[in-house]
């Protein structure tokens, strides 16, 4: 099997960008809005810049006609000649050089005239291996392929007659390849590459270059990391109101603008912004030539909208263009340039960020500032709001129950979990009741089961920063999640996060445990392959999560020291999935009954092991109530007596039933909460009942 390099491109210094990726014709394309668009074929050691540069200089010293030995000759008359580069592996040609005219028999013998084409400049690009020389017939204007040279050739003598030239037609348009645009988003659709979105750049600080005169045009910077791709964009200092057109880029820290910089305010380094000359432009490649973007294949989208483009998605036969609060549909039959049409989709739904759309079950799902939506296509029927149950999380006027924190929206992403017909939107959530952590990376997922139309919130003990679905070699599809430390996990396997079933549920700490490592007593860690590296360990005593950096069977090094020191003899849960569910306020019907609330009946599937905790809250109190009389419970329920808030439920009780007494505590309403924080098993709760009196009975005279 051909080898596979691990690092196929290293940007080295430009950090914080979020590349987008697309695949077409077994090649991967990558863009990020700032660096050149890259292409990788899966074999090369390095991804390379996509596209081909045209011959440089464009105007070259063409050559001359002369008398040459032999019988073949260029046909008499006026001809044009030019050349271009080509990559024979892909068949992609570059744009041509300037064409020059010559008179084939001017001053030379009619039978031995040739044309010496000199000063050809070979391409410096490694993937270019051919120079295609093109020539017209006498008096003609259609270029034909005169000859093909190796990419090191600097000259050639053309002696081809028109009758031989006639059949050598070009299998590409006059326009060949330049460099693809630098856009933030890309996707492959209907055998074309589509690109959209812009990046405003403001990294580092800049000032007018010293010693270039009172009205200089050069700007120098620190930490700016400018590149040639910003030529043509606009530059503006943060303390200025003048847009300056970038004429050229000298280096990563120097550029030249067209408008002069005069006055003292440009003498100190300040912040700046480089903005695109035309934002929100959709670029479409030529069909079958994904690296060729003709100038006419571009279209301004979201015109007149006060919003940025946030993504694009090929859906059914159309391209969907997303803004933050709107959508446009680009439809075409044969060619986007010839018969393309852009229409606005009804409604005011858009897309939060690039990776928040998922196509599943034949429908397109997405998320914007109002929540999740689903869409079946077409412009007359916009997306349908899907997440009414989650509306409070998206309501800026009420953050009491927690909220989706949109300042981190670029980090949001969505993934399909087809096995359980679900879509997971990974978001940053803050302000959740009982959770004082301020999250900056996605650790929560809003899960939607599109078959049952139900919602759930998932929480992970490690940030999940990106996701995808991917097939394996046996045709199965996995849902892959990547954590913040570069590990990739397969979601939907086992009963713990990051640990196999053979791993004991708890481990007990022994002497030698420190702030950076833990030592086990008689328990062992899973240590095969990479062991438990990346696995969360939960400390139930101090309610803190630790992450394993590396481990052996007898101990582990921690990624970070715990906030509260660990102690010898305490237990840690290995990779537990800590879950809880809590009811709303369940109202008792009559005052008399408030003193007579009897039992909470809880039903579950019996397991081999495991314990859940139940807490009771009366009258919508935020604190668990501990003064119900503990009597007449069944044997599945354990309570340590007065003052204890937790009722411990044996999940291995043979009949899957727990009865918790509610006697002795008056209340108008009751909420209860079920907590599971052990891992190692998957508890299933099938229902609950409360003993009381029916409302129907209440209404009887």
């Amino acid at each position, binding site marked *: 099997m051909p080898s596979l390099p691990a*690092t*196929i491109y*290293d*940007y*080295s210094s430009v*950090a914080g960008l979020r*590349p987008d990726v697309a695949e077409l014709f*077994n090649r991967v394309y*990558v863009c990020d809005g700032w660096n050149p668009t890259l292409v*990788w*074929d*899966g*074999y090369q050691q390095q991804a390379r810049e996509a596209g081909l540069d045209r011959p440089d200089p464009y105007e070259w010293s063409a050559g001359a006609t002369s008398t040459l030995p032999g019988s073949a000759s260029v046909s008499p008359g006026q001809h044009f000649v030019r050349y271009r580069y080509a990559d024979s592996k892909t068949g992609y040609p570059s744009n041509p050089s300037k064409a020059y005219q010559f008179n084939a028999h001017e001053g030379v013998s009619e039978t031995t005239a040739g044309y010496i084409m000199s000063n050809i400049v070979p391409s410096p690009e490694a993937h270019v291996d051919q120079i295609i020389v093109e020539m017209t017939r006498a008096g003609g204007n259609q270029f034909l392929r005169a000859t093909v040279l190796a990419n090191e050739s600097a000259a050639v003598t053309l002696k081809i007659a028109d009758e031989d030239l006639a059949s050598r037609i070009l299998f590409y348009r006059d326009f060949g390849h330049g460099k693809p645009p630098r856009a933030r988003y890309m996707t492959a659709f209907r055998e074309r590459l589509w690109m959209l979105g812009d990046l405003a750049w403001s990294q580092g600080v800049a000032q007018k270059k010293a010693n270039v005169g009172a009205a200089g045009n050069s700007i120098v910077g620190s930490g700016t990391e400018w590149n040639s791709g910003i030529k043509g964009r606009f530059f503006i200092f943060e303390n200025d109101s003048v847009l300056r057109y970038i004429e050229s880029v000298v280096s990563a820290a120097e550029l030249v603008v067209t408008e002069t910089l005069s006055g003292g305010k440009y003498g100190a380094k300040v912040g700046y912004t480089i903005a695109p000359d035309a934002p929100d432009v959709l670029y479409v490649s030529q069909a079958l030539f994904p690296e060729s973007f003709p100038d006419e294949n571009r279209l301004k989208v979201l015109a007149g909208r006060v919003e940025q483009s946030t993504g694009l998605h090929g859906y059914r036969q159309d391209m969907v263009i997303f803004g933050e609060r709107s959508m446009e549909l680009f439809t075409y039959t044969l060619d986007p340039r010839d018969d393309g049409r852009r229409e606005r989709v009804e409604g005011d739904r858009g897309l939060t960020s690039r990776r928040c759309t998922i196509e599943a079950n034949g429908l397109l799902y997405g998320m914007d500032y109002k929540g999740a939506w689903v869409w079946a296509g077409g412009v007359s029927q916009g997306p349908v709001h899907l997440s009414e*149950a989650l509306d*409070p999380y998206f309501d800026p006027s009420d953050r009491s129950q*927690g909220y989706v924190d949109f300042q981190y929206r670029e980090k949001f992403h969505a993934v399909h979990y087809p096995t359980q017909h*679900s879509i997971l939107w990974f978001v940053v959530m803050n302000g959740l*009741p009982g959770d004082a952590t301020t999250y900056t990376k996605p650790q929560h997922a809003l899960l939607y*089961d599109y078959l049952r139309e*139900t919602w759930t919130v*998932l929480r992970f003990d490690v940030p999940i*920063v*990106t996701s*995808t679905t*991917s*097939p*394996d*070699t046996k045709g199965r599809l*996995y849902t892959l999640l*990547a954590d913040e430390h*570069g590990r*990739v*996990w*397969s*979601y939907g*396997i*086992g*009963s713990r*996060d*990051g640990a*196999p079933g053979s791993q004991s549920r708890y481990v007990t700490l022994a002497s030698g445990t420190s702030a950076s490592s833990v030592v086990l007593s008689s328990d062992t860690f899973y240590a*095969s392959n*990479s062991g438990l590296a990346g696995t969360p360990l939960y400390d139930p005593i101090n309610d803190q999560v630790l992450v394993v950096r*590396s481990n052996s069977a007898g101990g582990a090094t921690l990624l970070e020291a715990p906030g509260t020191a660990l102690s010898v003899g305490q237990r840690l849960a290995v990779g537990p999935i800590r*879950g*809880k*569910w809590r*009811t*709303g306020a369940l*109202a008792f019907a009559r005052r008399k009954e408030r003193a007579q609330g009897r039992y909470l009946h809880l039903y579950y*599937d019996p397991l081999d092991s495991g314990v859940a905790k139940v807490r009771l809250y009366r009258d919508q109190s935020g604190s668990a109530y501990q003064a119900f009389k503990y009597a007449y419970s069944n044997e599945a329920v354990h309570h340590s007596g007065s003052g204890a808030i937790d009722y411990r439920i044996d999940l291995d009780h043979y009949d899957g039933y727990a009865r918790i007494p509610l006697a002795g505590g008056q209340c108008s309403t009751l*909420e209860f909460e079920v907590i599971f924080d052990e891992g190692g098993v998957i508890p299933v*709760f*099938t229902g609950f009942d*409360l*003993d*009381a*009196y*029916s409302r129907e*009975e209440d209404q009887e005279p």
Partner: protein
Amino acid sequence: MPRKVTLYSVEKFRGLNLNHPKSMLSPEDLARLENFILRRGGALRLRPGMARMNMETETVLLEAASFEDDFESYSLSDDLDTVSADWTDVGEHPITVKSHPSSGQAVEGDFDAAGDNRGYYIHDSWAGGNDQWAEIEFTENLNTSQAIGVMVRMSSTPTGYLLQISGAAFPANGTHGFSVYRVDAMNSLNAVAAIGDPGFSAGDRIRLAVYGSGQLRAYVNDVEVWRGSDSTYSTGKPGIYTFDTSSGSGRIDDFKAGVARADHLWQIQSGNESTRMFPFERSDGTQILVIAHGDQLRAVRIGTPEWTE
């Protein structure tokens, strides 16, 4: 007398509707629903876990050098181990500090005796573990029967792995150019691979890395030129090697050593966050996952979960 029933069938509550799987849960309920998923029949089921996804990788990650020695601060003509506690002489002949016209100071095995004359120096203060890389700059071309090299997992016996550049016709078996050897004793060099001549010249840097169960990687000027494996030695330190070099040829400079790691992707690396994963099928059918990771684009072969239940 009111009739006692199991009455609060949940339709009458504002709470969770466990009996009606298609109902929307109320927002206040959802705020209290975490990691439990409403399943068929109204059951609440804890979400499943996640297992490590095994990916096939072939590349070692080299951390930044944790030790560097440019030999500039030492007295000329002194043996390296006498002027630096970092080095220990474990060979037949000393390696000596010399001046160099372009690089300042360098070292060479300063002898020209007949027979095997090997200089092995171990970087004895190395504390970076057994997965390591070592690099030297090759400052002067070699004459026939001369060689220089860099070593990893080196012991004081000496044993270890050697990446060697030799002059023509060296060693006696005819192998020459650029080779990897397993050193089993002072004069026992067993070829692991003859790489050929990648076209060295003065100023080039050669590097050997080893990790795991003996995965070896050779580099010239940061570009990997060979990969292979030998599991004989699992421990040791970086070092340098000379054979029969003499004044004016075969000097080496700018020794560096650092930690090598099995694969960046599977290591805990704060600050290196993945921002995009993209599955991709190569034209030979290989399924690859391209990952934007930190400021790098990575590629791994898609494998299977390490465990199932």
